[in-house]
């Protein structure tokens, strides 16, 4: 998508430590990462992974301990405070708790960064009206933040962050305090900000759904390190790292847990297989074809298909009825186009190799046709 464009944000072996009771916390521990202009970049990780610290290095709210942070190819590490303020003014930021000024009206909040940037009063007023219109809060200009709902507050936060036409918008857990429906609205707004205004958006979250719905690329963080990054679909369709697998597992519980599998075997004592559904495998079509062509019956007993980065993703678990040779032929046939995991029968069960973790390593690695047993 943005192949040739130079990175708008670039981390080079960036380290950030904080003093802690025992020694130092390496909140960001040697991150090297590029964020390209025009993309929506996700950073996902559990609490304490270092996401907020990483994003606060982008607008220099924290100085790096070692390594570098480059904005538009320019190293901002070690710049004096006055120049850092200019860097910050060109980067918008929104927060989980919105961080609106309670003493100012909605319009006053949106006008604040304009005042900081020294805009004259009349231009400020016009810009505030324009921004409130963009986020759909034109009628709330004179209200105070305490009179708004969470979703409205975040819209004000977004309007405020966009006021001075930044090229980058940082969103630190911007939807984590919102209910699912409002979350969707705010994520839609972030997508509009990206698509209509061309602003690069960096989304920090611990929720897989947010990344799945919003981001082009993603970095998975754990213990201050980026353990995996890349295109959202490839990272989540073929997760390499346990942390990534756990996140994928939270987004779609398409595969039966060990307990659910036990219950399945009671109800369905026959051969059970799990078929991966991926965009590149055209798996539902192949599944239908294989069921038609082989002398067996298949019943879907578990599963789920969702979208990641607007592409199909999930799995279906089936009970197969027929003679063993036919079933084996069916599995071999289907394994040529997608991943099939044989779970055996109630009498001769085969374990899910990834039953300890919520997701399968071999299963998810996506080597097509390689791992049916």
């Amino acid at each position, binding site marked *: 998508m943005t192949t040739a464009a130079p990175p708008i944000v670039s981390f080079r072996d960036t380290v950030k430590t904080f003093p802690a009771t025992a020694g130092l916390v390496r909140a960001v521990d040697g991150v090297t990462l590029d964020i390209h202009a025009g993309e929506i970049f996700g950073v996902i990780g559990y609490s304490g992974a270092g996401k907020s610290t990483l994003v606060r290095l982008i607008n220099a*709210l924290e100085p790096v301990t070692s390594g570098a942070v480059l904005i538009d190819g320019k190293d901002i590490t070690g710049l004096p405070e006055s120049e850092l303020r200019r860097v*910050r*003014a060109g*980067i918008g930021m929104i927060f989980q708790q919105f961080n609106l*000024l309670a003493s100012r009206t909605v319009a006053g909040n949106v006008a*604040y*960064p304009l005042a*900081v*940037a020294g805009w004259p009063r009349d231009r400020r007023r016009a810009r505030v009206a324009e921004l409130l219109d963009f986020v759909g809060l034109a009628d709330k200009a004179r209200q105070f933040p*305490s009179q708004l709902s969470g979703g409205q507050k975040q819209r004000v936060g977004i309007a405020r962050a966009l006021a001075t036409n930044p090229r980058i918008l940082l969103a630190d857990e911007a939807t984590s305090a919102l209910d699912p429906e409002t979350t969707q609205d705010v994520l839609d707004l972030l997508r509009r900000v990206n698509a209509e205004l061309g602003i690069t958006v960096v989304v920090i979250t611990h929720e897989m759904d947010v990344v799945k719905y919003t981001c082009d690329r993603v970095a998975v963080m754990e213990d201050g390190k980026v353990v995996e990054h890349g295109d959202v679909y490839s990272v989540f369709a073929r997760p390499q790292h346990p942390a990534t697998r756990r996140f994928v597992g939270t987004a779609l519980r398409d595969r039966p847990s060990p307990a659910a599998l036990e219950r399945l075997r009671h109800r369905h004592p026959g051969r059970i297989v799990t078929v991966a559904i991926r965009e590149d495998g055209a798996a539902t079509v192949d599944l239908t074809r294989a069921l038609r062509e082989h002398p067996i019956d298949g019943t879907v007993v578990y599963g789920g298909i969702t979208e990641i980065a607007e592409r199909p993703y999930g799995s279906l678990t089936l009970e197969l009825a027929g003679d063993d040779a036919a079933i084996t032929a069916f599995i071999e046939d289907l394994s040529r186009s997608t991943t099939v995991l044989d779970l055996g029968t109630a009498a001769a069960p085969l374990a899910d190799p990834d039953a300890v973790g919520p997701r399968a390593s071999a299963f998810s690695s996506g080597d097509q046709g390689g791992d049916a047993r």
Partner: protein
Amino acid sequence: MNRDTDWGYLAPLLGKAFGETLQMVSVALLFAGVFGLALGIALYVTRRGNFFANRAVFTVLNVLVNFVRPIPFVIFIFAVGPATMAVVGKTIGTEAAIFPMAIMASFAFSRLVEQNLVGLDPGVVEAARAMGASRWRIIWSVLIPEALGPLILAFTFLVIGVIDMSAMAGIVGGGGLGDFAIRHGYQRFNWEVTAVAVVVIVIMVQAVQVLGNVLSRRVLRR
């Protein structure tokens, strides 16, 4: 109280005492409002983790405030006598009483200011920093306005404390309502005079409290 009180003689004295109290209280408060606010902000911003974090400065200010605040005011008046002499030029009289009141009130107010700022959500400061606001701008355009409601209540509390201090001004010839009550009431066993002086003080305090409540509520109604 059974004695006939000569209000013809006392009334002008009461009026004068009231004027002295007003003068002492308002000048001390003016000073404490400015200096105490500055000191309180200094305590807040030099705290660990805040944007002018400076352990040495914070420790000095903190110890100073902790050292001064518990000193009983009656003793403090005499303790700062030399400083009063240096600044005011005398150690007796209303002006001489104002100086220790202003100092003590500043220290008291600084702690109240600091506490109210500590209670603020650090997120709003972070947001302002993220917008490129300078630290000085954050002080006057974020910290003070965001804490204004509680700061008004804290100042109201301070006014009442300073009125209380002013009652001890008589000790250095500062006059005022407290002095009037002691001299013309208490020392002459005239409870009527004492009561009148007390009522005047109570009314002052009430008026200040009501005003403070109204103002802070107006600021907080958002």
